């Protein structure tokens, strides 16, 4: 299968999973929000579905990587740059109240203006950063 078809199939699975969470629990499938609200000082009272959703995600990752090791790509950056990237993603997604899933998938589909602004912004700064940093180390 071409990578475009795999991307489309993966996207349909992601959209279906987010729809299942909305249908069952009435919640937005935003990964940074689900994860972040389990951390202090928020410590959301409804931890059950959050922990279960994240556990499912982690199990899929662990099993999927065994079945198809190539699906987990090698790093293209040195460890210090990976850590800088992780810090920015953690800080930025909590400050902006969402990431690729909450704003990108759920927000755009709900025609949220906040999410459209967030997506346009992170695609723009992501493109500029990828262009400057390049594909190598």
């Amino acid at each position, binding site marked *: 299968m071409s*990578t475009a078809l795999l991307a*489309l199939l*993966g*996207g349909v*699975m*992601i959209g*279906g*999973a987010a729809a299942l*969470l909305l249908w*069952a629990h009435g919640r*937005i499938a935003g990964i940074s*929000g689900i*994860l972040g609200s389990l951390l202090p*000082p*928020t410590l959301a009272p409804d931890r059950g*579905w959050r922990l279960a959703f*994240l*556990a*499912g*995600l982690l199990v*899929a*990752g662990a099993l*999927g*990587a065994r079945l198809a090791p190539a*699906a*987990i790509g*090698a790093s*293209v*950056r040195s460890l210090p740059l990976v850590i*800088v*990237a992780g*810090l920015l993603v*953690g*800080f*930025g*997604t*909590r*400050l*902006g*109240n*969402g990431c*690729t899933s909450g*704003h990108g*998938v*759920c927000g*755009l*589909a*709900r025609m949220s203006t*906040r999410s459209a602004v*967030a*997506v346009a*912004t992170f695609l*723009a*700064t*992501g493109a500029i*950063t*990828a*262009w400057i940093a*390049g*594909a190598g180390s």
Partner: protein
Amino acid sequence: MTSVAAGSVRRRVIAIVVAAAAGALFGAGLLVSGMTQPAKVIGFLDVTHGWHGWHGWRGSPGWDPSLAFVMGGAVAVYALAYRRIRRGPAPRFADRLHLPTRRDIDVPLVAGAALFGVGWGLGGLCPGPALVAAAAGSTTGLAFVAAMLVGMLVQRAPARDRSRRTGSP
């Protein structure tokens, strides 16, 4: 009474299992889509990738636009489901839909999205794929997730003094 209590427990167990299934499907979708491959993500974000001069209207031959189909497919499916679910009965295991209510475009929204984009373009991972990569045992994934958790904690640290903010997108 016992049967009612047992029914309530059973319902709560099913609710948790369904949430876990949604997470697993989400994670599998990320693996299938290519979002867990940093080089592919960076090749998508960098629209000039492989650019060595004019190659006609189709653009640079090195640019890989395929990841646009991930968001396209996910948004299409979710948009259809959202319209149906919003008109339908209450969620299966909750009293109501918990949807974001804010509409204002403020500085934290734009600044946060901008910082997130820089991190995504630099590392090639966003939060979901990072968790999947970490669960797969990837050193990069584990380091990225550890740093991401620190970033999240640091961002919310001042909130101890202020009023609580909601974490909705």
